[in-house]
């Protein structure tokens, strides 16, 4: 199937992104499909620095990058930051592994989509955010919730369908929400969360410009996470347009794990280089190695700062990989073993661990302590979830409306919700 061979997009050689100093290396402009007129038009309208990108080495047959330490070119992180990042990624990994266990033991049900392998993206971005910033995710949202600060207990209880879950058991795996931590979901349909994220960013701009609320550190930022499959969906493009049009404080993060269930990204997409779609709308497009948390963090710092300043959105494509199937129900037969092995060798947690040990930021035993701490946390979360009560019947109708007058006026002239049987859940509505 040479027509779909990934070898077609190999034109620029792989190299690592740097910033303003290397403006001359702009691979996206040299793409053969871009006509000269567009190139100059792009140059002239863009007043900000030229967007940069790292070329993808994701394609099959390309020589893989060596894992971990050789890859980072950025400034070194200090011990404190490194340990925060390590702990967060370990939390994500151990939690998802426990989810798989619990699912096969019949404690959680339905569609469960695990994030193993992609931790660097969640940790790399979310650990830079403030409490006031918003995160919008997809159905693969457990780890985004944990990184944003939602308690493991609350997430686990939600997965078990208990009333102590973060959404009272009403959302489930694909609908994690937290108003305290500004996690705006959790969406089952792909692309659905992107407009919601755009709305949160609009709200941030509105509060600043119309309501004259301001924060000395800048605007509230929204980070929207979604996958490669979503990048062929209309809502993605419509929101890129609106976000850039109004310079909304948002970062669009593509978790390109190359597969949309069983549909390979290159089979579904005419131009598989997603980062290029940013400049098409006038915003910078970055491509970054999503298996390296420090590289992701470096790009994230820039994108988030840009949004906070009011300079508008950024599109960041993170090349990453999910070690498990699409969901726990996916037999995962289409992905080749050598592709899986290639990415398993680039496990982000192993990479960071090597980095930490190499730079002497911590000892092996200190990292072990962190891992044990997380183990205990997860075990506690499972116990909590297991011993929590199931939602009672009376909870059935409670959150359908904010204002329960919306259930209407009954034949007796009273509002339906005033009927005592209503809260019992036995009333007819």
């Amino acid at each position, binding site marked *: 199937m040479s027509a779909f061979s990934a070898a077609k997009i190999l034109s620029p050689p792989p190299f690592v992104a740097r910033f303003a100093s290397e403006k001359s290396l702009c691979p996206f402009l040299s793409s053969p499909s871009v006509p000269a007129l567009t190139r100059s038009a792009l140059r002239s309208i863009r007043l900000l620095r030229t967007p940069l990108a790292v070329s993808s080495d994701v394609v099959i047959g390309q020589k893989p990058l060596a894992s971990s330490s050789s890859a980072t070119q950025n400034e070194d992180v200090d011990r404190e930051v490194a340990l925060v990042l390590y702990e967060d990624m370990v939390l994500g990994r151990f939690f998802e592994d426990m989810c798989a266990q619990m699912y096969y033991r019949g404690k959680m049900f339905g569609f469960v989509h695990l994030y193993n392998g992609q931790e660097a993206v969640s940790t790399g971005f979310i650990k830079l955010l403030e409490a006031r910033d918003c995160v919008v995710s997809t159905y693969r949202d457990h780890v985004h919730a944990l990184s944003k600060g939602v308690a493991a207990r609350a997430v686990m209880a939600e997965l078990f369908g208990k009333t102590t879950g973060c959404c009272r058991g009403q959302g489930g795996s694909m609908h994690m*929400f937290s108003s305290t931590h500004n996690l705006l979901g959790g969406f089952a349909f792909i692309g659905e969360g992107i407009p919601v994220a755009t709305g949160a960013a609009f*709200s941030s701009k509105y509060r600043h410009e119309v309501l004259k609320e301001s924060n000395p550190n800048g605007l509230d930022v929204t980070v929207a996470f979604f996958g490669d499959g979503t990048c062929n969906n209309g809502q993605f493009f419509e929101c890129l347009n609106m976000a850039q049009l109004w310079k909304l404080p948002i970062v669009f993060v593509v978790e390109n794990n190359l597969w949309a269930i069983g549909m390979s990204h290159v089979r579904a997409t005419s131009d598989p280089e997603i980062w290029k779609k940013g400049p098409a709308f006038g915003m910078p497009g970055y491509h970054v190695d999503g298996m390296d948390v420090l590289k992701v963090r470096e790009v994230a710092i820039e994108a988030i700062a840009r949004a906070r300043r009011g300079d508008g959105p950024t599109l960041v494509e993170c090349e990453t990989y999910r070690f498990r199937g699409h969901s726990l129900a996916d037999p995962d037969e289409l992905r080749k073993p050598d592709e899986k092995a290639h990415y398993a060798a680039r496990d982000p947690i192993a990479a960071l661990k090597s980095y930490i040990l190499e730079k002497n930021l911590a000892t092996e035993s200190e990292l072990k302590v962190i891992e044990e701490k997380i183990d205990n946390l997860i075990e506690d979360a499972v116990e909590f979830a297991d011993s929590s009560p199931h939602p009672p019947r009376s909870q059935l109708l409670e959150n359908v409306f904010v204002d329960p007058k919306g259930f209407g006026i009954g034949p007796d002239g009273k509002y339906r919700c005033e009927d005592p049987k209503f809260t019992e859940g036995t009333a007819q509505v």
Partner: protein
Amino acid sequence: MAASLQSAVFLSNRIDPHRRLFASPARSLPGTKGSILVVRSDGRISGRLSGRNLITNAVAVECCFTKADTPTSSTDSKPGHELLLFEALREGLEEEMDRDPRVCVMGEDVGHYGGSYKVTKGLAPKYGDLRVLDTPIAENSFTGMGIGAAMTGLRPVIEGMNMGFLLLAYNQISNNCGMLHYTSGGQFKIPVVIRGPGGVGRQLGAEHSQRLESYFQSIPGLQMVACSTPYNAKGLMKAAIRSDNPVVLFEHVLLYNLKERIPDEEYVLCLEEAEMVRPGEHVTILTYSRMRYHVMQAAKTLVNKGYDPEVIDIRSLKPFDLYTIGNSVKKTHRVLIVEECMRTGGIGSSLRAAIIDNFWDYLDAPIMCLSSQDVPTPYAGTLEEWTVVQPAQIVAAVEQLCQ
């Protein structure tokens, strides 16, 4: 205007004081926070006052009209002011935008163009381009954007240039607008108002003549209201904006130029209530939006023929006001539903089911439902006329029911 005056007289005489308490516009329930004004049947205001300038409820004001409406008075001395329905909508919107800076408008051509039906005319120069946002043509995304903004503290009014365009936003309206409050376990509220003109116009063609109320009615978590007069348009607009629930406000393309005199004082109507248009004894006719006028036209003929129809504008399409409707059924024992939805799966079908469920014992005849034909609205004028219910059909239906 005549219709509302009639209703005013009726309401003041017929509704018992206990019922009036629930009919007041901004009533709070025990144990809930929120609007807290209770207007009693004798016009006194009780409960904790929110400090707003809400003087009285709709009915009391209308009663003033009937008493002051002497034949010799000139229009200048009449209380209230006259305006067209689209101006009433604008007035309601503007008052709410003045009152709460978080209320904003988004939609196509709502800003600089002033709205394709002029509902938002003049608002963009007054409030700025961010508060009255001209969006690109991307219904699904800007509706979702409105929902995201609502989750993070704003109160958007999302306009569909034509209700039919909101079919493109169905994903966001069903999945996010209706459901997010529930799936988030009550953590986020979506106080949006989704509004726009729908219904069959004058030879606008099939796609611009759709009735989306029948498609949206199953979405849990959504409230739907339909306005039909300048008076209820303004009141419902304000109520919808103030409500913390997502509300879909259906307007009709052919009703924007209706003229009526409305009160100068601020008033907010109840989203869940139906409106008594004409009290009667023989048959209950339930209708909403444009069909109200076809019904009233048929009512004139019916009165001449000796019938006494009771006409109720149900206004609240979801949920139904089973109290007003029930009281009427218990009195007349005969029901005719006149709607503009298609026969299959329309509001009329649901209403029929609700009445059978709740008031079966009071019925002396099967419920008749006149709906539009299950046909894409044709362009040709004659064909179009035959797809919607005409007054002559209503007269014939009543005659049949009352045999």
